């Protein structure tokens, strides 16, 4: 298990400067504590592998700072493989730091980013994920980028985020357009842009794309994908043997780690944990109701899922952030096939980008696949207040669920800002739904 890096002497001042920023220092220093805490459960391979990989990512980042390596900023609809394939370029998803602070339960930094973004002109009704990113960029916490990449998926919030990256990055910017449709022409259109992106990245990072290295990166990406698929299969087991809260990590894997050994390690850790728990017949809570959590996880406090499990017997085997469509393997044969495969991931697999970008049918169809595949009893539509595309389709979504006789809970909250809807209010809504609607219905057969 890697420990926080001891800084090398030669460029220590730069890395020290970087780590002096309280926003990084808190994360960096809390990793060993968190790892100690979670390692008390020797079977928690999923969370432990995540914490180990985040530590490794942070160490790599420090190395990149020390070595004056180029940084590439991008927003959460993009994947990191092409950047990893440049060798020593460092990918920075601009939501990274705010999300990490939410994950470790340190709301002060996350809320500071949100408030700072609003003070700088990001309207209050915009997505808090963007505000985390904008606030962090305004605070100057990320190493300056050699160049920046923006993509319009999954939603308008990412259009906004891309615009802000282009403005605040003060570096050359490349926009990737993913059209509305879900077809082969769309994938080819995106692949064509990835071919354009490569010389852009090469020119600005002063690194050469090595297609053998890209093949290795894509191979790692495939290993991660296969592990995720197998993991999600184990999570179909009834009763659910692994903690609900882990399911949302697929998105983080795709954004931060895809194409890296860390990504493979996390995915295999999650898989191993799920498989072993099922094989041991483990059931650390009494499962009464299984829900598909559609829309956004409660990032501000993932422990709420533990509470759901313990107090309500509610499990969440799958959610929209965790669902990884079975279309994502990259053909490693040629650079062309790899580029097509990478484009297909962005169009058809990336959680949210797949469901949020096009028409409502994809959104509803994927939900139906989840409810059937993971044998769920109900849907919890956790309506992040700024997800306009989801709220914009709520009437049609409700009609589809009513037709299928699936109980549905809808509530408003903000996935990164607990000031909008309190933890207690979320729990109250879910409690009532489970105990008064779903469980009685289930008992009635």
């Amino acid at each position, binding site marked *: 298990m890697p420990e926080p890096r001891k800084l090398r002497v030669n460029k220590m001042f730069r890395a020290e400067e970087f780590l002096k920023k309280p926003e990084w220092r808190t994360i960096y220093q809390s990793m060993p504590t968190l790892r100690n805490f979670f390692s008390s459960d020797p079977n928690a391979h999923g969370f432990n592998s995540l914490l180990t990989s985040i530590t490794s990512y942070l160490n790599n980042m420090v190395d990149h700072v020390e070595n004056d390596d180029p940084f590439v900023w991008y927003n959460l609809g993009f994947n990191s493989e092409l950047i990893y394939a440049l060798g020593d370029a460092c990918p920075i998803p601009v939501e990274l730091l705010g999300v990490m602070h939410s994950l470790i339960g340190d709301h002060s930094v996350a809320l500071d980013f949100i408030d700072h*973004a609003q003070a*700088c*002109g*990001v*309207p209050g*009704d*915009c*997505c808090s994920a*963007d505000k985390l990113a*904008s606030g962090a960029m305004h605070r100057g916490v990320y190493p300056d980028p050699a160049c920046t990449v*923006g993509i*319009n998926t999954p*939603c*308008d*919030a990412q*259009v*906004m*985020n*891309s*615009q*802000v990256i*282009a*403005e*605040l990055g003060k570096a050359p*910017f*490349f*926009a990737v*357009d*993913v*059209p*509305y*449709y879900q077809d082969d022409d769309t994938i080819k*259109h995106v692949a*064509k*842009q990835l071919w*354009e992106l490569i010389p852009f990245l090469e020119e600005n990072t002063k690194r050469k794309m090595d297609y053998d290295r890209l093949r290795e990166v894509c191979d790692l990406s495939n290993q991660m994908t296969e592990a995720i698929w197998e993991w999600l299969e184990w999570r179909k087991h009834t009763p659910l043997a692994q903690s609900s809260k882990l399911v949302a990590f697929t998105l983080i894997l795709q954004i931060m780690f895809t194409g890296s050994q860390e990504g493979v390690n996390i995915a295999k850790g999650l898989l191993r944990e799920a498989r072993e728990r099922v094989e041991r017949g483990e059931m650390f809570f009494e499962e009464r109701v299984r829900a598909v959590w559609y829309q956004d996880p409660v990032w501000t406090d993932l422990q709420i899922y533990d509470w759901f499990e313990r107090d309500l017997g509610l499990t969440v085997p799958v959610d929209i952030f965790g669902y990884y469509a079975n279309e994502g393997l990259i053909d490693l044969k040629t650079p062309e096939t790899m580029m097509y495969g990478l484009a297909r991931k962005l169009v058809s697999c990336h959680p949210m980008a797949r469901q949020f970008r096009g*028409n*409502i049918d994809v959104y509803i169809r994927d939900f139906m696949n989840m409810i059937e595949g993971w044998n769920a009893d109900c849907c919890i539509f956790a*309506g992040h*207040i*700024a*997800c*306009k*595309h989801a*709220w*914009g*389709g*709520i*009437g*049609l979504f409700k009609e589809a669920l009513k037709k299928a006789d699936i109980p549905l809970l809808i509530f408003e909250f903000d996935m990164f800002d607990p000031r909008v809807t309190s933890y207690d209010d979320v729990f109250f809504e879910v409690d009532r739904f489970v105990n008064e609607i779903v469980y009685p219905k289930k008992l009635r057969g």
Partner: protein
Amino acid sequence: MPCETLVSIRSLVKSHTNRYVDNWKDKGKPIIGYFCQYTPPEIILASGALPLRLRAIGSEDSSLGDAYMSSRTCTFVRHIMSMVLDEKYDFLDGQVTLNTCDHIRRASDVFVKKSDVPFNAFISVPRTPRESLYDYFLNELKKFINGIEEHFEVKISKKKLNQAIKLTNINRKLLTELNTLRILRRPKISGADALAVHVASQVLPPDVFASLLANLLDELKDFEGLEEPVARFVLTGTELDEPDYVKTIESQGGVVVADQICFGARSVLQPLEEDTDDPLDVIGRAYFFRTSCARMIGDFPNRWETLKKLYKDVEADGIVFQRLIFCDPWGAENHNIMHRNRDEENLPFLSLSREYGTASTGQVKTRVQAFVEKIEIARAKKAAGEQNV
């Protein structure tokens, strides 16, 4: 202001439809509604149909739209979809929606699944105006043409496209002439009325509009102009088709002498090349590379330069930015303008949030009044400084 034509135009844009649209329908000719400035009306005109920009002016109730799209969707789209669901747009023979934004994209879902409009089309417009993406847009236009041809059993020939270009060019030239009358020291037309005229250009048959605007320009010739305003504004931001909202802004002594609104002056392209061998390419390029909407990623530097140039050209005193609540692309624009303006120009800037259909609010008046005062104080200080020198 002695303008009968203006009174007529004001009245024509007070509803989502008008008597000329009714006449068109009565003649058995089709009408195709559209949402966004990236839809080329020339294509619709070339098919023999009337392009009608969708609006919800006069809507007082968005409850049907709320039910399907929630209160988190922008009120412009929600009100329109309420009217659609309330069958007020049932006279349409078709509609075309774009991936302009999440709201309009979801409006397409509701249109397709819940309305009786017989022809539904979709154009996916690339999210950045890069040359390498232009072919994709052109191909989408071709698909749109094929869809119209198939459904309406018509042929959209090059000749018809060229005719449509000629027809719309007439209005472009007239609107450009109108906009020059706005920037005089004593503007000959208010920003509210100018917006009404621009809106009319998107909801009337082009020949009818050309005739009205020619009359208006004629009537304005002898008009000496409005009182010299206490402040000259450039208006920018989200969709805005409500002249009353601009009237509220202007109620505090300022005048909107120029704008970059998609229903307003931004709707006016430079005249397109006429009688070409490839009119679709001419149309495609003009629309794809037009002064962009904030939905176009990475094009903010161009929009900012255009805004600054406009500001200087019309000798403005301040920028008024208005944004429909829940609009993310223009939310980013608000942030970026504030950021760039602070770093570069420090132009007087007022940012307003609004809901559709709530034009005359005290809050807007108060904020504009304070903005005008700020401009006047800065002007007085500058004059005093110059005297001291």
